[in-house]
């Protein structure tokens, strides 16, 4: 039984806001992104390196800068403590598995250093699917 999206959002916010690697270069980490896990969707809003809000029930008109979309199984693979080959990052999974990166890639690129670190927090936090 996966954790609830609400519980996940609390755990993820805590992990991100207390992460030393993000904190080291957090000043301009500001963006809004969707993680579409098939069975669950969230919109994470970052402001100046901190989680400002997590929308755990996005509506069809809710906006974001960019999105990562993949099957629930792929998100479960992302969250293993040591992911299998090709599930170990957003580019490996988009080149070789079913991950789709959509939206404004420029904003992703502007925040890439911290976003990548944040994505890997899933290995500690888990996923709600």
């Amino acid at each position: 039984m996966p954790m609830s999206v609400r519980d996940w959002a609390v755990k993820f916010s805590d992990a991100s806001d207390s992460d030393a690697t993000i904190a080291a270069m957090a000043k301009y980490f500001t963006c809004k992104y969707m993680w579409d896990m098939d069975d669950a969707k969230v919109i994470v809003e970052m402001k100046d390196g901190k989680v400002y809000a997590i929308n755990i029930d996005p509506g069809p008109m809710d906006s974001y800068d960019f999105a990562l979309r993949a099957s629930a199984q792929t998100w479960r693979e992302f969250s293993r403590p040591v992911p299998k080959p090709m599930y170990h990052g957003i580019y490996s999974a988009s080149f070789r598995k079913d991950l789709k990166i959509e939206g404004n890639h420029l904003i992703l690129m502007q925040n890439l250093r911290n976003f990548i670190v944040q994505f890997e927090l899933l290995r500690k936090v888990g996923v709600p699917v």
Partner: protein
Amino acid sequence: MAKHSPVIGRYVTIDVEGCEYKVFYLRNGHGIPLVCQHTAGCHNHQWRDLLEDAEITENYDVIAYDLARHGKSDPPLNKEWWKEEYKLTKDHFMKFITAFCDALELRDPIFMGSSFGGNVALQLALHHPDRFRAVIPVEAAHYAPGFFIDWWHHPHANAAQVCGSGVWDLMAPQSPDMDRWLTWHYYTQGSEVFKGDLYFYSVDHDMRGQLGDIDTARCPVIMMTGTYDYLTPPEMTEDTASQIPGGVYIEMEDIGHFPMSENYPLFRNYLKEALRLIDERT
């Protein structure tokens, strides 16, 4: 007492197609020259642990250079290079390597390169089989499209971070944090050349239909790829090696696209096997 490394750094000036390059290289060891090419957009510190590996340097003269425009090797000193877009071609790349080996008067060296250095190793085996004792293409394939993209130097993003973090998941999660972040650090230093290097890697390097012409009796080819490399995944390298008569493929478990830099203690086991196979064949 100061702690000095046995590795020595020097410059040598070479001419490549009319370009004057002052090339920086690191060197340590005795015996058979082992010439090492770093990956695209990077520099010779990727080979830092090999250069200090006492067991290997006992029998091999390890030489890791910075390709022109990388690390401490400047762009051409006799040319207004800033007035042209940098795009590395296979011919210039090979001429650079052979000119460098000539300048150091290396006799029958082994050439090892990773990623675009691995791809040029394949080109050297095809075009200059009598210049090299053997080649070790690491994380290479005969054709690797898809990475010649504008994001590497887009002016609206922090190109240093895009390069460092854009190649982050080319490394295996098992590789030590310190070595992965050092590799990230090196990648933040080469963003202005990364895309131009990848012109060779993804566009000009296309050996489809040519692999059967590589003569491994004259120049053995030992290919090695890590299981976490998504750019040239193991099946791509294996496919390349299988099309080279006498080509050898070694799969490296739990390592990625920058094996010598991200996890040298693991990589050296595979490297020793590659060197043993070359010793057997030469």
